[in-house]
Every structure is written in C-alpha cells, then in structure tokens.
C-alpha cells in the first residue's frame, strides 16, 4: 500500500532526485527537448536546498559554468540533448584534461542536426566516447527505467568524483519522458562518494600529482591551495608543457586512472544466460524490449538470454566475453545505424555470430521486432 518514499515521476525528474541525493548543488543548462524537465526540476528544487540553478545563454556556456562551479568545489551537472551535447564537446575536452568531475546527462533524440527533437534515439553512443578531440578515456552509463535513472545518476556522480573526470549519462527520450513508480532511497542507503581533498600544506601539494591510483586530490578554490588550471597539456604543477617526459605521463594518466579500474566501473544485467544459445545485447530503452522479448521467447521454449549494459564506456569487454562464452549467436539491438555493435564485433571471438537489429525512425524498438529477428537468426 501507500509508501511515503514512493513517487510516480518521469525519468528526467528521477535524474534530478539522484543528483540531489549525490550532493549536487549546482546546475547550469539550456532548454532543449527532450531534456528540459531536468533543467525545470533543478530550477524548482535547488533553491529549496540552498543550491544554485542558472539558465545560461547556450550549452557552451552551460558546461563552462558547470566546470567553473566544480573547480570552485561544488558537485555540478548539466543536462542536454544531441545538438546541445555537440556544442558542449570542446569544453568537455577541457574537463577531461583538467580532470574536473562533473556529470552531463544527454537525453538522446534523433539526429544528425536538429533531427527528431521529440523522438527517441541512441545515436550518441559513440559521441559519448569520442566526442571531444584528443586522447582520453571516457565513462558513460545508460539507465533504462525511472528507478535506474536515480541509481545511475548517483553512480555517475560517484564515478566522476572518484576518478576526477566528466561522466555522461546516456538517457533516451523514452526513458527520460516515461513516468514510473520510484522508491526514493533514504540517506545512507546508497553510497555517495566525495572527491578526495589534499591534506598536506599548500607548499607541498602538486595539484596534478601522480598518485598510486593516478587521481590527484583536488582542492576547491578559496580553500588555501592556489593552483592554476589550464586546457593546455600540463605538468604536475598545472603549468603548460611541451616536454615528452611530462606529456606522456599526463595522457597515460587520463587513460589509466579509468582503465585500471574498469572492473569496478563495469555494470551489466544478465538474464537467462546460463543455458542461452542466443543473447540479446542492448542498453537503454532497447533493453526493456529485449527483456520483454526474452521473457516471451522463453515461454515459447527458446533458449535465449539478455545482457543489458549499464556501463557503456569503458566498454565491458572482459565481462561480455565471459558471459557470451557459451552462446553461438548474439543479437545487438540499437536505436541507431550501428554503433555499439562494432565494439561487440571487436571483443567477441570470431565463432560467435553477431546480428544487428537496428531502428532509427525515432520510434522505440518493440519486443516483436526483436522476436522476429530472433526467429530469423535461429
């Protein structure tokens, strides 16, 4: 019966709740369908908890303000959709090289360009990995229900704070706009990670020092540690460098601080895989269709399983190889013309047949479409 903690809310709003649960206090954004409810939610909720909301003049300014606020010491985030995500890429690169924790929610819609503003898509999956120019390792997560919008937002903030890096949450229009019953966790129920701050005296602290886990403690502005932040490739002091012996370690750090911990970043849902001969692999809203299709096909006696990716980047290669070891075929369902399937082709052994079920007309993948594909490949 009625539970005080339970609420019916949109996926977008569940992201706002998750962000607030994480201790987020700063949002800067620009309205864009289908992410606008996140900005609206923040404008409503943040003043009530002493946080800050600002509607910037565009997405470039939004991500810039978020980076500024994070460097000043506040957990910060923004939300956008395709065209806005494209505009943010340069400054996202800045966040990567300056190792600034922040979260960007991209509620995906059809593209390229203005594309299909009100329609669902998953065509920014590769952009979430390779959007900004240059070399870096990226983290991206993808929820598929309203409840997961909350938990994955908390997880995204934790990952960004722990690894001092921007994290993208790949929502899609269906997940962002659907309403579902969510049970809001009490304080302490979910882990909340806060960035590590320096403890040594300001004279001894190097703002970008090489620590064993490659994550440098990070002071906020005004906390006694006066440091320089630049988008130029920099040394451990934060000053720009052109020296090979400083450039190599910096770029290796951007990669390895994340890739060394990919086991801890990976998260998957695995259903009916024990005896599965065929597996659906998907993420976001397509996973909901895949789970449904799996349940229906199992009823009909088909040995099919389902793998849902919550962590998209870094790509969970080792896990997928293990889970799919006994499958002969996989079906990769995506709302695009083929993005994550290339990663799957890269990581799965050659004797596993890889089939694609792709939809890119702005409509959600249906369980029936996946079932038809399943029958076709069987």
């Amino acid at each position, binding site marked *: 019966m009625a539970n005080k903690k339970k609420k019916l809310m949109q996926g977008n709003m569940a992201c706002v709740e998750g962000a607030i649960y994480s201790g987020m206090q700063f949002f800067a954004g620009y309205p864009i369908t289908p992410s606008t409810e996140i900005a609206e939610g923040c404008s409503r909720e943040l003043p009530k908890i002493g946080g800050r909301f600002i509607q910037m003049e565009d997405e470039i300014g939004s991500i810039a303000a978020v980076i500024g606020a994070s460097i000043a010491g506040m957990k910060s985030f923004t939300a956008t959709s395709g065209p806005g995500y494209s505009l943010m890429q340069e400054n996202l690169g800045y966040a990567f090289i300056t190792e600034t924790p922040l979260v960007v929610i991209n509620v995906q819609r059809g593209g390229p360009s203005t594309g299909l503003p009100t329609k669902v898509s998953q065509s920014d999956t590769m952009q979430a990995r390779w959007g900004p120019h240059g070399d870096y390792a990226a983290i991206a997560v993808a929820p598929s229900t309203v409840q997961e919008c909350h938990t994955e937002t908390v997880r995204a903030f934790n990952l960004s704070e722990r690894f001092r890096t921007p994290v993208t949450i790949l929502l899609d229009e269906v997940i962002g*706009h659907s309403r579902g019953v969510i049970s809001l966790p009490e304080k302490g129920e979910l882990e909340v990670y806060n960035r590590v701050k320096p403890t040594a005296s300001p004279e001894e602290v190097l703002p970008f020092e090489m620590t064993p886990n490659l994550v440098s403690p990070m002071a906020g502005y005004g906390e006694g540690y006066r440091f320089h932040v630049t988008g130029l490739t920099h040394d451990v002091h934060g000053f720009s460098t052109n020296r090979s012996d400083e450039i190599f370690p910096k770029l290796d750090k951007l990669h390895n601080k994340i890739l060394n911990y990919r086991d801890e970043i990976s998260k998957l849902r695995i259903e009916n895989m024990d005896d599965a001969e065929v597996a659906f692999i998907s993420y976001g809203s397509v996973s909901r269709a895949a789970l449904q299709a799996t349940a229906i096909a199992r009823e009909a006696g088909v040995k099919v399983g389902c793998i849902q990716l919550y962590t998209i980047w870094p790509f969970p290669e080792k896990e997928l190889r293990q889970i799919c070891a006994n499958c002969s075929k996989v079906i990769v369902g995506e709302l695009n013309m083929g993005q994550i399937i290339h990663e799957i082709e890269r990581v799965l052994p050659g004797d596993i047949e890889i089939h694609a079920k792709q939809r890119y007309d702005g409509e959600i993948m249906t*369980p029936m479409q996946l079932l038809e594909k399943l029958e076709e490949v069987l």
Partner: protein
Amino acid sequence: MGYKFIDRIKVPEDRFELRLSGSGGQGMIFAAVVLGEAIGLAEGKNVVQSQSYGPEARGGASKADVVISANEIFYPKAMKLDMLLAMTQEALDSYLKDLKEDGVLIVDTSLVTDIPVDNYYGLDFTHLAKNEVGHIMVANVVALGAISCFTGIVGKEVLTNAVLKRAPRGTEDKNRKAIDVGFEEASKLKK
C-alpha cells in the same frame, strides 16, 4: 536451421495496458498521470506511464499509455491494449487496431460517431462535463470515473484522491463531482 516459434508466443498475461487518446488539450496526459499515480502508489502496483510527443501533441491526435503489472514492467509502452479510451474520431481511427479483441473500448459519443465495432461503451463525456458538472474542461475526469467503473483497475476513492492531489486548488468539488458522474453513468451501462 529454421526454428519457428513466433506463432506460439503469447502476449504476457501479467500486464494490463490502457491508452487514453484524444486531441491535444483534452487532458489525456493529465488523466494518464493521475491514473498512474492512483494505481502505482495507492494500489501498490508497478506502473509505467508514457505519451507520444511531437507535432500531434499540439492539436492533433494525442495519446497517453499506462502499463500496469504486479511484476517488473519490462517494455514501457503498450503492446496490445486491454483498454482504449477514444475522445475523438481521429483517435479511434488511429488506435483501434492496437486494442485486444476482448479489450474494453470507451468512446466519447459526442465527438465519435463512426464506430466500426459493436462491443463498446459509449458515453457523452463532453456533454456530461458541461451539463452535469458545469465545466467542459473536466471531460477527462468524467472519463476517469467511467474507466474506474468499467475496468475496476482502480477504486473510485483512490482515484478521487489522486485527482484531487494533482488538480489545481479550488477545483476539488468540480473534480469530485466529475468522477461521480462518470462512475454513475458508466454503472448504468456496465454489462
């Protein structure tokens, strides 16, 4: 290999799917959210509510779906409707094909005149709202009262509370009346 199974599959029986459809401005999304809230929170079931966005949301056909289940809801949209409410002819023409053969069809007879099936419930929601409640705007709430009666998916009291929670202050009496009217008129027709 040619392993065929599609002809043997069954629509999952643990789901109850309903669609409220009409034209933009008739409050279909509001009604669906209220329904979702009543069923999801007070009745303690899993609920996913979604709607179609797009140009049609402004004046054209508008639809809002609610999927209800005691189990985890995988697919968030309707697959085969257990109930369809059509408040306009266009909505009926668009979505009738999505209704199960034994599904419940409810139409607003003031706006829907061409009904190609025999098995349906017809109520004049628009006129009921105007004449019995005094405001055409609550036709969607009158329809909610009727849905409660026809489907039994949500109790009248629970539904009333959910409507009052969402409705603007000062409209409580009108909304309560609207649900009563819808429920009573429906009970006269219910088979």
